[in-house]
């Protein structure tokens, strides 16, 4: 993976073509998170804070090990702890490292009106460019995973970059580097899928998790972060991971048909008015002819 992986293949709010589209053959990168071997140590949270040099905020004690209820603009990587009761009454502790999923079809980018505020590199990483951000928060509405968070002071939105800076230098993301159990892996999407499916098969066949599987939701075109889940049929158990996420219907409606309808109506309306003026002209022309009558 070279610097070239930071060529851009999708740009938010952009008129015209995208420079990096179809410009290289490099593969998409992917992070694999095996929730079945995560021990909730939070080393990834610390590594994320350290590498990205994020300012500290207050943590919240909510009667669990969880650092805070959800990710923040300055806290991009959060392990969600979920106590789950299985059908036979036994307890399972489901831990899921939550962060940006780096969707192939990103809702944040689709919703963003600002040219170049959100880009997707040819390696699949979805990255926010705060310098181009206008602070509208449309990305918050577009994201099906509740990931983009607003910095209230600067009105700019932040999230996990998949350590695009590290990846472009051939390094793996900071969280991967820190994981002590090896539940985090990084590589090409193809390799991570293979690795994940192999682990899921092992769980199904040897560990009494008949529904184990890989979470790579097709509704958003697949993701650049995929999970191995003990029970892939119920991702909601893992801190509300949506079972079939997609760009919200209303956002698609707004950015799709409504946009075209509106553009056609506006341009059509303007043309209509010009044609009307040329055909019928102003209303008061006859008034001038009527002026002599006025005195009579």
């Amino acid at each position: 993976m070279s610097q070239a992986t930071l060529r851009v293949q999708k740009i938010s709010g952009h008129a015209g073509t995208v420079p990096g589209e179809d410009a290289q053959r490099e593969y998409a990168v992917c992070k694999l998170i095996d929730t079945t071997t995560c021990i909730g140590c939070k080393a990834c949270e610390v590594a994320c804070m350290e590498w990205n040099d994020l300012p500290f905020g207050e943590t919240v004690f909510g009667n669990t090990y969880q650092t805070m209820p959800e990710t923040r603009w300055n806290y991009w990587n959060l392990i969600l702890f979920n106590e789950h009761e299985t059908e036979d009454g036994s307890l399972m502790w489901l831990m899921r490292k939550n962060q940006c999923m780096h969707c192939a079809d990103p809702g944040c980018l689709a919703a963003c009106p600002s040219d170049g505020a959100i880009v997707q590199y040819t390696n699949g990483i979805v990255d926010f460019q705060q310098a181009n951000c206008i602070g509208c928060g449309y990305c918050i509405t577009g994201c099906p995973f509740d990931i983009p968070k607003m910095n209230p002071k600067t009105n700019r939105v932040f999230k996990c970059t998949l350590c695009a800076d590290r990846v472009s230098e051939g390094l793996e993301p900071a969280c991967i580097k820190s994981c002590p159990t090896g539940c985090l892996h990084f590589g090409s999407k193809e390799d991570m899928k293979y690795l994940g499916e192999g682990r899921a098969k092992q769980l199904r066949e040897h560990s009494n998790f008949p529904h184990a599987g890989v979470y790579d939701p097709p509704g958003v075109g697949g993701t650049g972060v995929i999970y191995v889940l003990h029970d892939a049929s119920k991702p909601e158990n893992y801190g509300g991971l949506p079972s079939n996420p997609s760009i919200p219907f209303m956002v698609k409606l707004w950015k799709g048909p409504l946009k075209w309808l509106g553009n056609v109506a506006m341009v059509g309306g303007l043309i209509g008015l010009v044609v009307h003026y040329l055909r019928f002209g102003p209303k008061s022309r006859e008034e001038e002819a009527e002026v002599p009558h006025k005195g009579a």
Partner: protein
Amino acid sequence: MTPSASTAQRVPPGHILRYSFRERLVHWLAALSYIYLLVTGLAFWSPWLFWIAVALGGAPISRMLHPWFGLVFIIGIIQMYGLWASQMGFNDVDRAWMKSMSHYIQNQDESMPPAGRYNAGQKMLFWGFMIFGTLLFLSGLVLWFPEYIPWSLRWVRYISVVVHASSAMATVGLFLIHVYMGVFAERGALDSVIHGDVTEDFVRRFHPGWYKEIMGSSTTTTRK
């Protein structure tokens, strides 16, 4: 309706005061704020129009000011409601006017039923701006602070983006027709909302019902 207003401001002979100072002020408060909202809104609407925001000082500034201008606009809308809502009810003449709208479009104004101070088209414009202005305001509040809408209420955001955009499109339609009528089609109309007065002929021609109302009792003869 406004004979008392005609005593409030001197107008040239043969002219009638159509809009009081307050009416003109409110109109331009709403109009100018709407124009800012329209152009910055269009910049956020389409990447092909994003340059408008750049030309107006940068998109972050446009995003920051757009909601504040929205507050000015909604104040204008509320003022307009207070000024004009009572005059905007639909009566039988308006219903007849609607039926002969095709004549109006073809400038056959002599075939139109005698409109009052406002014709049915103007009344529709008024109510259109009232309804869509209110929808824009409510959805705009959500879009102003989307980060404070909790995840469990995210449907409020989803509805707001669609309502805001479609209401805006509806007002663009109203706005285009309004500006076309006022500036290009009905000569004298733009003047009237700046200086306040129109010619008697203008009133006779476009608002015969109103003409009768303000002149009828005092003049000796009625035309026709």
